[in-house]
């Protein structure tokens, strides 16, 4: 299972890559493995203002639909357009080309509560 060190994580199995006040968001390798082959991704429109934990996207596999929450509060900047034609990128490269959306975060203090790679790994190992 891939858990890149430079990313932050949530207990809902989302990852966040922070650069200043911009954040890339996706679902973790563990999450895509649990979901199985992903066939459809529904993403938020640019400009959508969201609160932390609001459900903003969904990832549909042959087994189930997974809801994706906003890991931080802010405004959606861009959705990953490549996923509409190739949702399987989320399976193939969950932390890279399979990113879901970017956002401009409004409450930087929230980021402090995100899990680091070691904490996320422990969370997954505990059955979370």
């Amino acid at each position, binding site marked *: 299972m891939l858990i890149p060190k430079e990313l932050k994580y949530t207990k809902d199995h989302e990852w966040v890559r922070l650069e200043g006040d911009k954040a890339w968001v996706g679902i973790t390798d563990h999450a895509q493995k649990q979901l199985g082959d*992903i*066939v459809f991704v529904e993403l938020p429109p640019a400009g959508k203002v969201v609160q932390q934990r609001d459900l903003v996207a969904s990832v549909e596999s*042959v*087994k*189930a639909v997974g809801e994706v929450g906003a890991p931080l509060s802010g405004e959606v900047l861009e959705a990953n357009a490549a996923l509409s034609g190739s*949702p399987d990128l989320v399976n193939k490269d969950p932390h890279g080309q399979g990113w879901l959306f970017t956002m401009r975060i409004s409450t930087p203090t929230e980021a402090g509560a995100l899990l680091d790679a070691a904490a996320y790994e422990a969370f997954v190992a505990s059955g979370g």
Partner: protein
Amino acid sequence: MSTIYDHGAPGRQAVALPQLGKVEQGLLGAIPADLRRRDGPRLPEVSQPELVRHYTALSRMNYGVDTGFYPLGSCTMKHNPKLHEDLARLPGFADLHPLLPPEACQGALALLWETAEHLKGITGMPGITLQPAAGAHGELTGMFLIKRWLEDRGELGRRTKILLPDSAHGTNPASAAMVGFTVVSIPSDRRGMVNLDALRGALGSDVAGIMLTVPNTLGIFEEDIVTITDLVHDAGGLCYFDGANLNAYLGRARPGDMGADVFHINLHKTFSTPHGGGGPGAGPVTVSEVLVPYLPVPEIARKGETYHLDWDRPKSIGRVHPYFGNVLVIVKALAYILSLGDEGMRAVSGGAVLAANYLKAKLKGAYKLPYDQLAKHEFVLSGEGMGNGVRTLDVAKRLIDYGFHPPTIYFPLIVKEALMIEPTETEPRETLDTFAEALLSIAAEAREHPELLREAPHETPVRRLDEARAVREPRLKLDF
């Protein structure tokens, strides 16, 4: 696999079509020339033996309750008595036009009225509509009823939340959201039942109600059911019960006595009318006293010995289905109720619960059982940790080689690698034993010959289908 167009040759016919009569010729003249088709339809050109052989071959590849055991959790795929088919085909029901005036179809209205009275008695609830066409349609109807009740009390803008245990049927949150409610998930506790502390924490003056699946999707009966409905009522909300699992307590307990305000009944599950490809469903909804004024119109009412349609319900949510719902399905359900009687209905729930617990006891040593409670009509195993990379999907595919329809898999979501098994009460013990032996044998194969599972099915007309590709690149029409 061939289609009918792969057979035959130009000019062959299986049947002689009648010539157009004078009436039809005249009708043809009424259609403007530019709207008429220029070429004939491309019908298959096959002889009768080719036609019969093609469809007989296809039917032999099919699998249904009439060919084998079908333990599909949450779906209640039980035997449908054949007497029902004869009764639904009686010309007095089958040949009725839905626009006949009430005085010309008293028999059918009497049947609907009588079925409604039985269902009210079975559920212990004073009001009913027979209109909804299936379970999720019943849910939607129920949510509309709650919305109209809130509107009538001037609380619609304030009470916006519907609470949903994470062990509810997957359609429940969709139904609540479609009516405009916000869905709030309530976690289960270690027993697989509603976490009462979480429920208390979520209740407030913004809650419209709760949707409970009874028993829940783990096949577990909520021991605190009366506490739950009391808490919701005390907070000013209403209680919706998803009744798709009514077969677990039919004739033994009544949702009305447990505090339900809305309850939907899947006639095509509990009352054994055909299901899936076998026919349309029916999802009547029963309600408590507070919701009676809002029921769909028209109500079928009786005055003395005659039946009429009562449209005088100013607070009604209106119609939810044309005419009277799926009437012929209701004919079959009444046949079931009358054939079984009170004792027979208690035997249904007793048999369903016994079969589920029997299978659970046989299988729990070989598969994980995350919630080991007394099962009602179904139970949920987990294929987690079978080793050698074997997953529940592989177990399900391998079961096909053993001649069984696989159970529901990957639902409910609160169990990883779920296998949800509902045997129903109509299977003999020998079938349950053979099925258990198959699953035990598969668990052994997973340890010793995991490739047998990963490559399954082996004995079917087509091997493992690429489910992801079927969704990503659907071919929805045949080019010919």
